C-alpha cells in the first residue's frame, strides 16, 4: 500500500509544478511520507515507463546535468482517477474508525 500511496504523492507534487528529484524527495520528507530517500527512484522510473511522467535534462551549476521531472497528460488523467479512489478509501476508513470508537 505504501508504494501506491507514494506514487500517488509523486503525481500530486508534479501536478503542481515541474521538479528535480531532490525537491520531490524533500517535499515527501516534509510531510513524513518517506524516510528512506532511495525508495523514490525506482518509483520515478516505473511511473516514467508507464508514461505518467517524463523528464528532461537540465544543466546544473555544480556538476553534471540532472533530471527535471514533469507530469504528462496521461499522468493527470491517472491522477484524477487516483484522487477519486483516495477519497473513497479515506471515507471508508474514517467511517470504520468512527464506528469502532463508538463501541469503546
Amino acid at each position, binding site marked *: 500500500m505504501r508504494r501506491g500511496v507514494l506514487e500517488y504523492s509523486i503525481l500530486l507534487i508534479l501536478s503542481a509544478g515541474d521538479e528535480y*528529484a*531532490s525537491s520531490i524527495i524533500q517535499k515527501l520528507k516534509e510531510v513524513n511520507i518517506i*524516510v528512506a530517500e532511495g*525508495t523514490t*527512484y*525506482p518509483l*520515478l*522510473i516505473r511511473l516514467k515507463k508507464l508514461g505518467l511522467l517524463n523528464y528532461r535534462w537540465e544543466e546544473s551549476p*555544480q556538476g553534471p546535468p540532472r533530471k527535471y521531472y514533469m507530469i504528462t497528460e496521461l499522468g493527470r488523467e491517472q491522477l484524477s482517477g487516483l484522487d477519486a479512489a483516495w477519497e473513497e478509501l479515506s471515507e471508508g476508513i474514517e467511517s470504520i474508525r468512527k464506528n469502532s470508537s463508538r463501541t469503546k
Partner: protein
Amino acid sequence: MKKTEKISLGGLAFIVEYDAYAELESYLAEIHECFRNDASADEILEDIEVRIAELLREKCKEGMVANLEMINEIKKRIGDPKELAGQEESETDVVTEEETAGEPKRKSLKDRRLYRNTDDRMLAGVCSGLSIYFNLDKVLFRLAFLIAFCLGFFEAEDGLFGLSVLTYIVLWIAMPAARTVEQKCEMRNRPIDLKEFKTKENRFGREINETVSSPAFRTAGRIFLTIIGLIMIILGLGGFLSTIVFPSIPELIENYLIPDSLIGEEIIIGKIACDPTFWWMIFGVIGLGSLGMMYGGIMLCFDFRSPSWRPGLVIFILWIVSILVLASWILHEVAEQLPMIV
C-alpha cells in the same frame, strides 16, 4: 592517517578515505544486487548514485576528504537496500525458499568447484585449492608433491620426478585462479550473498602477481643467499687468518728466498719484498678485504640489516684507501730506487 581513493560519483569528483570507499562500494553493490531482477536496474542505480553524490557534496566541499561518518549518514538517508527494492524482495524470497527446500544443508562435494586458491599459496595455489575442494589439509597435498619430487630427483623411483612436476604443471594450467568474489564463493560452495562482498578476505586477498613473488621462490632465494653468505664468511676468514703471517714474511724472504746477487729490477723487487712496511700494507689491504667479505657474508647469511653507521661502507672505504696507500708507496719506492740502478 588513512589511505584515500579518488572517485567519480554521479559525475562529481571526490577524494574518499579508504574505509569510506570500501563501505560505499559495498553499499552500491548491495543495491545493485537487490535490483538484480529489475529491467531498469542500471538507471535506478545511476539515479541513486547521483543523489548520493549530491548529498556528499553538501557534506564534503571541494578539497575536503570524505570519511566513513559521512557515508554512513548518507546511507541512513537513502535507506537500506532491501527496503529500496520493496516488493521485489518478497518475490525473490519465495523463489529461493522453494529451491533450497529439497536440498541438504551441508556443503556437498559436487557443488564445489575446483579453483586455485591464490590467497593462500606457496607457489601457484594448486595444493591450497585442492585442499579446499577435498576438505583436507593442504599440507598433505604439499607433502605428496614434495616427496614425489624428492624421490624422483634422487632417482629412488623411476620417472617420479617428471610425474610430480608434470602433474603440478597440468593442474596449474587446468585449474583457474579464484580471483573474483563469485569465484571464491564457488570454490568453497558458499552462497553468493551480499555479505560475502563485504569480507576483507574476499576482496583484498593477496594482490601480488603470479609466480615471480610466490613464497616458494622467496624461500629458494633465501636459501641461495644463505649459502653464498656462508661461502663468503669462509673465504673471508681464510684470508684474514693468512694475513697473520704477513708481518713475519720479510724476515723469511730476507733469509731464505733472496739469492745473494741481484741485478736490475730484481733489486727493487727484492728491496720492496724485504721491507716490513710493505707487508704491513699488504696486511692492511688483504685484511680489510677479508673483513669486508666476512661482514658481507654474515649479513647475507643471517639476513641482517645494516646498522645506521654502515660498517660495510666504512670497511669498503678503508679498503680502497689502503690499496691507494700501497700503490703510492710502491710508486714512491720505485721512483727512489730507479736512479740508483740505472
